[in-house]
């Protein structure tokens, strides 16, 4: 103990980071997180590893580093927030909460970049967001984004993301059924309880089919749908960026909206949204009026795959695809859901499911990270695309809009024919095929 230092009092009292200091103390510096971290693997600097970032956080707390230290901002900004380190951590360090608290603390001295603030402001305004997503959908329908996705740089990638958000089944189905793609009439006895869907800003706008598929497959598995019309953006992007105040505002609105719906389960098909719904309790823990209601909502939040897996799910008609599954970080690491999405896929006869190497590694999407740190995001995406190519799969199933677009864009720009799809949409297609076969 020769060189032991006695820890001084907290240098940044009253900040969000100071409130999370117990989480920092849980880190014993063992380093088991290093190889789980995509940015450490890509950059090879411990400052870009979970252990290194926790060291920086500790240095902020102890006053060894100042909150305006540019190096601290650089390395904290570069974190994807994928939380793979939490899965690797034997000590149970709540890294995601620490990261959000650190970002909130740092944003008090330096605001996030304009691009980030613009996007976050957009997501916080329901009506404006709807118009923006509607415009994007209109643009997508022209086929122009597919052409423009060949543009070099960030702009081309953004168009590729938009182009890849179109369901790969939509065209095939429309063709096979003479332009009709109205789905089918899902029937169930509602005996498994009631649910209200968190529609999600991007999911409802660009992945409308996946949302309808979510409702239909749940109904077909004996859940009963209830409406929650007053819902808002979940606030996940705001929380990840350190705008905890806006995240709390949005959380309160959603808690009220879903309470009003009377549903037993609050369901989402977006892993990022689901992770935050389950953390509303933590987010509002110090809000005397809302903490109990927030904890209650978190306890009722479910990913769609959880409810489907609990119900079986019911087996559909055969689909002849070669599919691989990539685990969204906020499903695998933040919510610790690994088996349920596979059970959804395995309910489809004829589906050939092949394993994807390093499926637990981040794809680099990470909310709006790919727009803020495009170079590093691309470096993290590259091995993912290479591994997908090795599977020979025609479809990559993954349950989060960011991952669907990031991987989809990566495949498209690499000239690869594989497409991304939400697992639930495949199950829905299987049920639809069954409904058409036995009217």
């Amino acid at each position, binding site marked *: *103990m*020769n*060189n*032991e*230092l*006695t*820890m001084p009092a907290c240098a940044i009292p009253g900040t969000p980071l100071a409130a999370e200091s117990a989480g920092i*103390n*849980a*880190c*014993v*510096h*063992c*380093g*088991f*997180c*290093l*190889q789980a971290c995509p940015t450490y693997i890509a950059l*090879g*600097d*411990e*400052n870009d590893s979970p*252990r*290194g970032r926790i*060291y*920086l956080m500790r*240095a902020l707390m102890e006053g*060894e*580093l100042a909150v305006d*230290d540019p*190096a*601290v901002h650089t*390395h904290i900004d570069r974190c994807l927030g994928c939380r793979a380190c939490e*899965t*690797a*951590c*034997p*000590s*149970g*360090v709540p890294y995601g909460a620490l990261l959000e608290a650190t970002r909130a603390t740092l944003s008090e001295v330096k605001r996030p970049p304009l691009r980030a603030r613009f996007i976050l402001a957009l997501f916080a305004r329901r009506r404006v967001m709807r118009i923006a997503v509607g415009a994007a959908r209109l643009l997508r329908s022209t086929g122009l984004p597919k052409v423009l996705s060949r543009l070099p740089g960030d702009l081309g990638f953004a168009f590729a993301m938009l182009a890849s958000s179109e369901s790969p089944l939509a065209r095939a189905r429309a063709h096979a059924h003479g332009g009709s793609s109205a789905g089918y009439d899902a029937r169930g006895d509602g005996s498994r309880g009631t649910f209200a869907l968190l529609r999600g800003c991007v999911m409802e706008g660009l992945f409308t089919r996946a949302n309808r598929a979510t409702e239909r497959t749940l109904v077909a598995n004996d859940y009963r749908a209830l409406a929650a019309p007053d819902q808002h953006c979940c606030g996940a992007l705001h929380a990840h960026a350190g705008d905890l105040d806006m995240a709390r505002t949005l959380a309160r609105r959603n808690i009220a909206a879903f309470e009003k719906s009377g549903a037993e389960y609050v369901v989402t098909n977006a892993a990022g949204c689901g992770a935050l719904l389950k953390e509303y309790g933590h987010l509002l823990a110090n809000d005397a009026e809302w903490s109990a209601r927030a904890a209650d909502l978190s306890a009722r939040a479910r990913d769609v795959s959880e409810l489907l897996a609990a119900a079986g799910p019911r087996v559909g008609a055969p689909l002849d695809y070669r599919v691989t599954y990539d685990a969204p970080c906020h499903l695998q690491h933040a919510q610790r859901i690994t088996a349920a999405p596979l059970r959804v896929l395995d309910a489809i006869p004829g589906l050939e499911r092949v394993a994807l190497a390093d499926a637990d590694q981040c794809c680099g999407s990470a909310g709006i990270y790919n727009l803020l740190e495009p170079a590093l995001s691309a470096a993290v995406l590259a091995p993912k695309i290479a591994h997908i190519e090795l599977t020979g799969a025609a479809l990559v199933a993954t349950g989060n809009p960011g991952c669907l677009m990031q991987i989809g864009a990566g495949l498209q720009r690499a000239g690869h024919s594989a497409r991304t799809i939400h697992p639930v949409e495949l199950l829905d297609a299987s049920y639809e095929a069954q409904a058409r076969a036995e009217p």
Partner: protein
Amino acid sequence: MLARSSELATYSSDGLPGYRLRPRLAVFPTTKQQLIDVVRLLAREHCPFVARGAGTGLSAGALASGDAVVIGLNRLNRILRIDPANRLAVVEPGAVNVTLTRAAGAHGLHYAPDPSSQTACTIGGNVAENSGGPHCLKYGVTLNHVAALEVILASGEIVALGNADGEADGYDLLGAFIGSEGCFGIALEVTVKLTPNPQGVRTLLADFMSIDAGARATSAIIAAGILPAALEMMDGPTIRAVEASIYAAGYPADADAVLLIELDGLDAGLDADVRLVEKHCLAAGARTVRIAANEDERARLWQGRKKAFGAMGRIAPDLVVQDAVIPRTKLPEVLRAIAAIAARWQIQVCNVFHAGDGNLHPNIGYDSRNADESRRVGMAMRDIMRACIDAGGTITGEHGIGLDKLEYMPQIFSPESLAAQCALRDAFDPERRANPGKVVPVHSCREWRGA
């Protein structure tokens, strides 16, 4: 290259956070040639340096202070060649231990030394520390699995040690280099031996209501002539820390000790050994002996053991882990002595260790902000080392001396022996620029020089 003080802070400690020393610079070569250039530049400037891999070491061996420069080897992480026919692989020093085993798995082979940090630690670091791991009871330590090394000495000279094709001529300089804790030079390329995966593996978990009973079972198993692939013990506080973590392995939470025993080899005869081990455990007082039914259960039992060190983080904000080896037959009395020391200093010791080869790892959780508690932990550490030395043991099994155990070196070596170690070091690095101030107390070398 990192020169900014705020970015160097991260490199001021390794896996043992009780020590913090800020390096002057940190450089991260990405090619072998860059590494050679860096070492030669430092040689021209007579500048000291410290090689660092993943920084998972537990003796503060990879820390640099004063003028010393950290040379990070983590970007030199390629597996250059796997030669399944000769069961060899050539890797760069920053290659991660488990990555090598995964790559070798395609050929039915693995890299046998498996330190608990194997998911993060590097082969270069393993060479420096002569790392062990649970399976070294049967398979041996890093020394037994490295065939040859290409190393760069502090002077910039590149030398080949050992011979991948057979026995090397002359003195065993390869053996001298492995375990030299970065004081003899830096490995540029490591040629390791790969081991065929065993045909059959059986993993058993025996739980006991006293540490004594577990220790007696350990001695009885080895005395019966059985050589398990691994024989690990965890005491009650460790069991409860693991069971509270995400790596909960299903250890009985009310037990005072569990033994995790692995037997491997040819399928024929394996089950007879399993029955024999079971018999010895029950005779020593085991409540139950459970045999892992499948690969999932086996992996779960092992995860609990391998992540035990990290899981201790749940108990207290700071953690020190000790590393000492005692004669296996002295396990019961030394473990009793450790319990008495813990009581005397009012601290909690968690024991998790390689029982089969008598390699103890007492872990002590504490809060470094509490000066009195920190002092008591320091005193308890000293007493524990003294008890191990008095029992005929030694001060490190696999973590190395580094900075943490310098003060114990004079307790087990005479001044003449320490001087001889300094002389050996001088043969590799006469300027003593490679990892300065580690392993042998500096004053020992001065005495030797004065003589």
